[in-house]
Each structure stands twice: as C-alpha cells, then as structure tokens.
C-alpha cells in the first residue's frame, strides 16, 4: 500500500509530462479533424471578432468546429476529382504490391534455397542498392521513364518504379523467412517427383503466408504514401495520386482549400494508419534487422 502511494506521488510529474506530450502529439491530428468537419475551407476554427479577447483566442485554438458538418467529405468527392486520385493511388499501389511481392518471392526463394554462381554477388548488390540516394537516380529515372519510354502520367511508369525500389527490402525480408522453413518438406516433395516451381507454389508460398502478407502490406503502404516520384512523373491532373492531389489543394498559388485537404487527408491516411498501428511490431523488427545488416 505504501509503495503504491509513493509511486503515485513520484509518478505525478511523469504523468504531467506525459499528458503534455500526448497533447502535443494529438493536437495536429485533432486540428485536421476539426478543419475537416468544419464544412469550410478556412484554417480558422471560429470567426474572430475585430478585437478578440483572451477567451476568443482560446476558443480559436480549441480543436472543435463551430458546427459539425460532413460537407467537406461530400464535396471533396463530388466537387473535386479526389475520388479519381484515390483510385489512381489504389491502382498503382495494388499493382505495385502484386508485382513487387511476386518478384521478391521468386528471388527470395532462389537466394534461400539454391546455391548458384553469382548468388552472393546478387544478394550483396541488392543490399548495396539500398545505399544509393534517391536523388541520384531521380533525374536518370525521370529521363528513362518520361523521355525514353514516354510513360509520364501513366500508371505503368509509377508501378515499375515503385516495385523495383521495393524489391531489395522485400527480398531480404522474405529470404529471411524462407530460411526458417525446414528443408525436409521440400526434400520429400522432390522424392515424389515435384519440380522446383511446384514446390515453390505448393509448399513454400502457402507456408510463408504471414511473411508474404507483411511484405505485401509494406509495399502497399510505401506506394500509397510515396510523394516525390509521383510528383515528378505524374504531370496530368487526372493522373495525380492522392498525395499529389492533397498537396494540390493547399500548395498552389490559387486559393488554399484547407477543408478539402483535411477531409481528403483523413480518407487517405486512415487505412494506412490503422494498418501501421496493427503491424508496427513487425515493421519495427524488419527495419532494425535491415539496418543491422546494412
């Protein structure tokens, strides 16, 4: 009894600090919710009188709208092409996930199970490629995709870029998992006359579902949230992805539409935020594992 009393006294300051940090953390999120549900495009939560008092100012920073309205959510889909942009993002991210995971599975399987000339070199080259800075390849990639292949403002260009940049991480991730699957299963299948392709599809893939799912979700989230490449490649307004579209609402010289931005942000960010929170443990272990190897 006495220990818990001293604990709660000692912890008071810790709780005060933690609550402060929670407020700082949550405020921007409440802010975007407030703007989204305000039904207006303005940055202000309330209309300030000409000579605002302390309480007026306090009301102005309280993250609660004057009236709650879904108008921004309706308008961003009906008045603005945000639905189209979400669709673009989804198309690109889904196609990226499928291609990226397929490429990573096959390569990861080969690196895990076969011994062949060039295996080490191949694996190391994947690792080294992670050290190339994005900017160094950005200009050449732009020239290759837009000037040579004429894939500017095209799903295919972005899908190619995203799936190849995701490959090294996915390959190493999956190879690590494949390494833990006992070989006996495959050996007995080999005895029964199964080909490597069959073994891969019938044994390895079903057994690795959890790892493949994590890899897939990772590729999906990366593609869904990617900004610079999409900004560079997608020129046409109808081909924007959701991030570029959201920047378009508030980044230009035209009138800034904070209401559309906030509503759109919530729609675009909510799924990946939930995914992230569910998957955080796996992602964090993957990240630190990768960094130790790198």
């Amino acid at each position, binding site marked *: 009894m006495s220990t818990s009393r001293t604990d709660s006294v000692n912890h008071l300051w810790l709780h005060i600090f*933690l609550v402060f940090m929670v407020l700082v953390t949550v405020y921007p999120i409440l802010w975007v919710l407030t703007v989204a549900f305000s039904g207006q495009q303005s940055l202000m939560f309330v209309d300030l009188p000409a000579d605002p008092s302390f309480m007026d*100012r306090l009301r102005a920073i309280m993250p609660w709208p004057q009236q709650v309205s879904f108008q921004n959510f309706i308008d961003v889909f009906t008045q603005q092409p945000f639905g189209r942009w979400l669709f673009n993002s989804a198309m690109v991210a889904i196609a990226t996930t499928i291609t990226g995971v397929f*490429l990573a599975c096959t*390569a990861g399987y080969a690196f895990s199970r076969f011994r062949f000339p060039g295996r080490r070199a191949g694996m190391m080259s994947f690792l080294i490629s992670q050290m*190339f800075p994005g900017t160094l390849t950005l*200009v050449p990639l732009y020239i290759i995709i837009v000037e040579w292949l004429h894939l500017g403002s095209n799903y295919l260009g972005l899908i190619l870029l995203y799936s190849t940049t995701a490959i090294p991480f996915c390959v190493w991730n999956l190879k690590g998992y494949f390494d833990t699957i006992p070989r006996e299963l495959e050996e007995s299948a080999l005895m029964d006359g199964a080909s490597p392709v069959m073994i891969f599809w019938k044994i390895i893939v079903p057994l690795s579902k959890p790892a493949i799912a994590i890899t897939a979700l990772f590729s999906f989230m990366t593609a869904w949230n990617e900004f610079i490449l999409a900004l560079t490649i997608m020129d046409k307004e109808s081909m924007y992805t959701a991030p570029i579209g*959201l920047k378009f609402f508030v980044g230009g010289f035209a009138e800034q539409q904070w209401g559309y931005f906030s509503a759109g942000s919530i729609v675009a960010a909510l799924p990946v935020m939930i995914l992230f929170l569910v998957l955080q443990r796996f992602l964090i272990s993957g990240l630190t594992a990768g960094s130790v190897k790198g």
Partner: protein
Amino acid sequence: MRTASTRNILAGLIVSLALGMGLTSLVMRAGHDAARIATIESNAVVTSAAVTEVIDEALSSEADVQVVVQELVEAVPGLEQVRVIHAGRRQLTASTNAEDKAAGELPRRLKREQKEWFDQVKELEAAYTTNVDEGKARKREILASVTPDEQLELVLPLFEDGEVKASVQTVNLPLFPSELGRGVGLLGVVLLLGSAVIMLALSRFVPSGLPLFLLGLVLVIAVLWVHAGVGISAIVEDRVVGQESVAERALQVKETIQAVPGVIGESLAITGWNLDQFRQPRDTFDAKGVVATEQVLNDFAVAKGRFVQGAFFLGLISLLFYYWIAAGWAAKTWQALVKYRGAYGFVMPAMVGMILLVFFPFFYGILMSFTNQTLYNVNQPIYELWSGLDNYVKILSDVDVFRTAEDGSRSVNYQSFYWTLGFTILWTVSNVSIGVTLGLLLALILNTPNLAFKPFYRIILILPWAVPNYITALIWKGMFHKQFGVINQVIQMFGGEPIAWFDAWFTSFIAVVATNGWLSFPFMMVVALGALQSIPGDLYEAARVDGAGRWDQFRFVTLPSLKPALVPAVILSVVWTFNMFNIIYLVSQGEPAGATEILITDAYKIAFEQYRYGYAAAYSVVIFMILLVYGVWQNRVTKATEGI
C-alpha cells in the same frame, strides 16, 4: 586455350562476324541516308540559289517579279513554289502559291498570321550581320525545313545595298539519283559463308587450340576490315555521285532558266549556286559541271573519320565476342545457365528490374554529372554534351557564402552550396538530437515500473509515426500560417505579435524542425523502449548491491545496454533526416529565398525547376559522396568505441 575446340572457334567466328558486319551495316546505312539527305539539300540549294539570283536581277531591273516567279516555277522541274517576301516594305512581293494568289492582288502587305515570314527575313539578317561581324561562318544563312508532304522548303536572303532586306522561299521536290545508297548488298553474306568454309578447311590441317584460335582471329580481323573498308568507300562514293548529280542539276536549271523568255540569263554561273548552309561557296564543281573529287573528299573527311571510328569500335566488340565464344567462356556461361536454370529463372525477373531501374540509372546519373545536359538538349547524344568536371568545379567553388553589397553591407548568399550544406548539417543535427533526447526520455518514463496507463500513452505517442509524412508537413504548414495559423493565435493570446514564420531563415528553421521533431521522436522512443525492456533486471540488482546510485545505474547499466539498439537507429535517422525531402519541400519550400533549402531539395529544384539535369546529377553525386564519407566515418567510430 584448352577449351578452344574447333566447334567453339567456328561458332565464335560465325557469331562475331555476323554481329560485327551486321552492326557495321547499320552504321553504313545511316551513312547512305545522310548522303541522300545531303544530296537532296544540295539540289534544292542549287535550284533555290539560281531562282534567287534571277529574282534579284528582276528586282533591280524593276521587272514584274510576279511574272518572273510564275515562269520559273513552270519552267524548272522539281521547283514547286516560290514566294518573295520584302521585310522592309512588310510586303509579300510575289508568290506562286494558289491560296496567296486567290487572296488578292500582289504585291500586298503581310497579314498578321504571316509574321513568321517576316521573322525569317529578320533571322537571316541577324545571321548575316553576326557572321560578317565575327568574320566566321557560325549562323545559318539558309533556313531549311521539311514540309508535311516531305518537300524541302528553303529560305534564302535577298540583298539591297549590301543588307538583307527580303527573302526568297522555295519549295522543292526531294531530288536524288537512284544509284545512291546501294550499299554492299550481299557482300556480308558471301564473306560470312566464305570465311566459315575457309575455317572448316583449315581446321583439318591446323590443330585445334591456340593455333586455330589465332588463325580464326586473323580471319575475323581481315574479314571485318574488308567489309568495313568496302562499306566506307561506298559511302564516300555516294558523296561523289551525289555531287555529280548536283552539278548536273545546276546545269539543267541554268539551261531551263536561260530558255525562259524575258529572263536575263546570259551571265549565270552555276558555281555561285553551290553553297553550304552558311552561303559559302563549296567549290565542289566548276562552271562546266566537272566535279572536283578531291574537294568533295576533303569536305567529307571529318564525317568519314567518325565512320572509321565507329567501325573500329564495333570491330573491337566483335573481337571480344570472338574471344568469349572461341575460348569457351560462352559455353561455360551457357552450361552454368542450363545447369542452374531453375535458380536463374527464379532470380531473373527481379534482377532484370533491378538492373534496368536501379543500377543502370545510378551509373547513368554518374555519367550525366559530367555533362551539361538540360531539358532542351536531352535528345542529343551524351558525348556531345560532355563537359568534364565543370559541374563539380562549379558546385564546390561556390565558396562566397557572404556577399558584400556596394554600400558595404554584408548579406548571406543563400544560393551558395556551402550555406546549403551548413544548413543541412544544422538541420540533421538538431533533428536527431531532439529525436534522441525526446525519444529516450519518453522511453525511460514509459519503462518506469508500475506506471499507470502505460499502453494508452504508448499507442498515442506512436501516432505521429503512423501519419504519412506529407500530410504531417501540410498540417504544420497550415498551423504556421501567419494570419490564420493556430500557433500565431497562441502567441497573440499572450499578447505577442504574430510572426511571419517563413520570412526569416531562423523562424523558418524553427518551423521545419518543430514539424520534423513531431514526426520523428516516436521512432527513437519505440527503439529505445524495446531495448530497455530487454535489459535483465538482475543487472540493476547487482548494481544496487554494489552501491550504485540511480545516476550510476543509468550510466553504467542502462546506457551501455541501449547502445546496440540506439547506434543503428541514430545512423538510420541521420540518413533519413539528411534526405528528408517532404518536410522541407512542403513546409518551408526553401523560404526565405532558398535559405532553408537542404541539399536534396536543392538538387530537386535544380533538376525540375531549372531543368539543368547534368548539374543536378553532379549535385546528387556530391550528396552521395557526403553520405558515403559519413557512413565510413560512422562505421569507424562505432567499431572503435566497440573496442573499448
């Protein structure tokens, strides 16, 4: 050379010859095409120059130019249309174009949509005066373009008192002799089959291995030599044949013009029409139309040199192939491919993607950094844009961080590379320090035993990591808005003046650091928390038994146990922050005046706002080098401290 079996050598011979001769033929075909185009142009220039001369005479003798022009087009075969434009009078003086004639009486004033023709005269005038001033032939004095129906439109200047005042536009049929560009035809096939037969015959007398390999090598070199030699002389021949046809054309034009009634054609000299694009005489034939072969060859010498170089280069590649196949390497590669075809099949799709879209761009980027490639010359071959180390010198010699204005006041040159580098380092160090301090502090607090609401705090404090960072950036940009942003509302709440955050570099810096601090501390917190939880409690107990206080426990137990997890996390977050494009690009946008630009946003702006691709590539290589140096240094330091 033990593996240099007869079969390998024969295969090497056939493949390398087929490859070498095939590629050389492609290059030679390009040569023939170039010769044909040159001939078409020369024929058109000769015709056009003749027409211009006649019109010039007609103008000075005040004859009716419209009639002259009409008669010329009717008389001269291959001449489709003529227009005379007088810029000084802003007048369409004469034209054989049906629409022009239908539009009313000639000469008449130029219409607004015909300004292009007026501009052509001005362009020719500018080119002529520049060339005269410089004493060089640098600007084109004959404008050439291809019409949609593949005819050649030329514009030549007309002079009045030694100045360009008017122009003659002609449209010409593409004329070239049929014997141009016949190429080497079946020669390649004959050579290939012949040398294969010779090699087969030789292999009966010469032992396989090195002797046969060397014989094959000699044969490959000889055949490629002959093939390239014949090809190049065919191209040279094309030039001579082309010039002969031009001379013939000039004589034909002269005859037809002289037959036109009312045209003064006595003194026409065909050599005066044989001009290059700078209107300099080419002297490739004399007044009687006899071609001066030596002059033609002289003109072609530089281009010929390029073809020789190309053939030589392709020959070398073929020889490498010969070696690769004949010495048995190809067979070995093939065997490995067959033996491990399963594995290679599995790896190949990913590897091809990586090579094309990761490794190739990387090396291409390095190559680009040595050129002055921009958006406007991106289609030119890269070797023509080579500029050596210019970009690097320009970037690294940009040392004037402080500028002194005329009145003696000093200001910072925010565009300087070193300012940006300094700012990037400041940005990285501040953010990582804030992230580590805050993250570590929160982790230690959350690791306190018996703390209430732990899971609640943890899930809330991890939220900023889950929000996509471009959204975070734009939210904070809104909160830092000068007039409506909540941060200025808080300042005003306590009686302060609103701050224009992005008008001075320091406040702008605070804004971006606040944004980045918000989104980056959870990562450190999670890493540190994980490490803290894995420290066994026995360690603390042992420390307490030894009489260590709380601080000593922290110093000697907690910190060392955190190190293995924190060091990689710090390295990772240094690299992330150094390259944190989205925050700078979206929050401060480099404001004010590029002061808060970090290296990679600067590189991006150079590439995609100034379109200087080569310079941006060099800039990126410099960034890569900085990160590389950091990586090596960090590696050493980590290893050194581990040793202690």
